């Protein structure tokens, strides 16, 4: 019997879908080029108006267009970084949970070591070394975020491998890789999906933090974190410059969290 989708799930899914749509359709939706000056507001940002619904920044650029294009970067980085995180975390977690013993011990100690390193600082250090670009950010965020996924997947894989159907398959002589991919992984998949959704909100925030610190995607590509950084100095005279990107980040993080928790609650029924 298929359970009814709950409200959280639906709202979360809708919000994520809206983000994806905005990101995909950015060139059509955005009224102006986000990197060009379209208003004469140099050094003196303009407040929201009919012409520029979210105002313009100190270099004459339309804030609305920058927010829309910013969604592209945020989603791109958020989702791709999540993919990197997933790959590393699932591989480690599955191996540890399934093989157990020494493999488990080594992998988990390695995970513990990674957990002791402060994520944001490690990310900052790595980006400084690799140089800020989309690719290095993806890799770096992926590297600092996989530990929680690994642990959860390990726990699931551990319990899965003790289950009857897996024991049965093993007795029948199925090789380990086949056991993992055919039997364990499909059953761990729902958990992975939930962790992915929840994790994306984390990678999004990490990307915003790095951009804020000047280590994100370099200008002129608009990114929400960097927009906030550029706006902090104007906070007293032009508070909207920081508020709107902040709201955008809030919306995106909320979207993925709702989706993740929604699916989680669904499964828990």
């Amino acid at each position, binding site marked *: 019997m298929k359970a009814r989708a709950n409200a959280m799930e639906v709202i979360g899914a809708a919000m994520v879908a809206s983000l994806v749509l905005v990101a995909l359709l950015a060139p059509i939706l955005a009224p102006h080029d986000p*990197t*060009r*000056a379209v208003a*004469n507001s*140099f*050094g*003196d940002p303009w407040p929201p108006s009919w012409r520029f619904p979210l105002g313009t920044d*100190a*270099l*004459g650029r339309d804030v609305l267009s920058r927010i829309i294009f910013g969604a592209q970067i945020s989603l791109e980085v958020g989702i791709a970084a999540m993919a990197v995180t997933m790959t590393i975390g699932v591989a480690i977690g599955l191996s540890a949970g399934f093989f157990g013993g020494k493999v488990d011990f080594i992998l988990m100690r390695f995970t513990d070591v990674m957990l002791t390193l402060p994520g944001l600082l490690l990310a900052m250090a790595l980006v400084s070394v690799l140089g800020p670009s989309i690719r290095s950010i993806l890799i770096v965020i992926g590297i600092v975020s996989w530990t929680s996924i690994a642990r959860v997947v390990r726990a699931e894989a551990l319990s899965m491998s003790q289950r009857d159907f897996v024991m049965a398959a093993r007795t029948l002589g199925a090789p380990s890789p086949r056991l993992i991919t055919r039997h364990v992984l499909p059953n761990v998949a729902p958990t992975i999906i939930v962790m992915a959704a929840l994790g994306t909100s984390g990678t999004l925030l990490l990307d915003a933090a790095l951009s804020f610190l000047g280590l994100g995607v*370099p*200008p*002129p590509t608009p990114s929400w974190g960097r927009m906030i950084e550029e706006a*902090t*100095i*104007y906070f*007293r*005279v*032009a508070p909207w410059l920081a508020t709107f990107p902040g709201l955008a980040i809030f919306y995106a993080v909320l979207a993925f969290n709702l989706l993740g928790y929604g699916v989680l609650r669904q499964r828990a029924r």
Partner: protein
Amino acid sequence: MMMTVVIFAGCQQSSDNFGFPPSAMVLRLASNDDVPSLDPAAGYDTASWTFEQAIFDTLVRYGDADVELHPEVATSWESSADGSVFTFHLRNDVRFSNGRPVTAADFKFGIERVIDPATLSKGMEYYQGIAGAAEFAAHRKPHVDGIETPDPYTLIFRLSGPDPIFPHKLAMPFASAVPREVVEKWGEDFSRHVVGSGAFKLREWIGGQRIVLEKNPYYYVKGQPRLGGVVEQVGVNAELQWLKFESSEIDVLEAIPPSEFPYVMKTPALRALTLNKSTVTTEYLGMNCQMPPFDDVRVRQAFNCAIDKQKLIAVINGRGIMARGVLPPNLPGYDPDVRGYDYDPAKARALLEQAHFPHDPKLPLWFRADQTGEMLAESIQQDLALAGVSVALKPVAWGPLLEAIRQPKNVQFFMSAWEADFPDPENFLSVLLSRKQFGSNNDAFYTDPAVEALLGQAALVSDMKKRYAIYDQAQRIVIADAPWVFLIHPVQYVMRKPWVHDFIMNPMRPTRFEPISLSQPTGD
């Protein structure tokens, strides 16, 4: 309870008065970057000179508000008819802050130190014209013969050729009186332990944190300095400086952040605290003529046409005028008829086409890392993107930036500025664009034989009208060759608290601390 703790903590800071007695008048400043050097032979930037001119004395100096030569340690001077011998008569009541009297030998030592290649002084070039300088620099002679000290209070300079503006070169901190024994004691560390004869002495310099000056008890001008001390906190970014000024933690705000500037000008009470001066400065983008793509003059001209300079001025709230050439408007010898390059993106694209400019090379633009620099750089990036050039921004701290651009074949494209040291076109054209200044101030590594010849010619001419005409010819060639994108001549605005008196802006030099007084001691 927490509130009271916080309040007491705040009170402690100022009642402490940085170690000065509570009644002392201490001028409090803040800056983003640390001072590069206090050694008069080494420092060659506004920050260093601000303090060097307070700690050291030169033979002659500019007035508080003008660029006429006035006596400092020299009471009078005369030149020979042909402008190649200059005689200075010194006061006899000047002492270093360690008590020792200053004599002509101390000036000789200071200048020889600058000429000595081992010191790596950026001011070397200015004193090469003294007879015997080359022999001394090559270590063939122990002293520069052309600097004579017939008695402790007379100093004679014999130059190898006429140099009508030589006295101006003695008004730069390079030509300060320096105590030999202190330099020999500290060697390379002299900058951290400077001793001079100026109105102030160095009390403390904690790198990255603060510089503290205190009154020199032996200063020869009675009644000066009026301040008991000066404290500059470093590493304070522009926004924080603004906040400190607002909360009266500092007395002078040297750079009003662009985000606050419109607000300041619109608020009468704040506007009354501002002072401004048209600086004798040119801001420019240097293009390394020895590195591709800037070895092609068409590319350099294209960049000049591609960048909207009026937009840059708007970004800094109108605090400047567009630069059409090398020389700024307040410099004697400025030619108001030079056209420079107007904003013409179509022409820029055409020139780049002609030059077969490679698309998307991701050119790094190096610039000084501060808020204003960031905004100007992004505006420039925008303009160049429209011309099909993609530029990556590279913010760097001021000291390292200067070091990097001076290395040959290192930095292709950078933002920099030059403020006049003395009121003559030589200070721009020769210092920034002559082959002799490669590795020093000619960071675009530009050279042209015709320009070089004209510069050599002009330097000897004492008829100012003729002199400026020759420099003008040179400038026009330089403009056509476009080693720089000529950006702006900025107008500097500062703010000072109502209790700061006699903070006088000089067109060419940082404000002097000597006349400043405060009408309330900062011990409150």
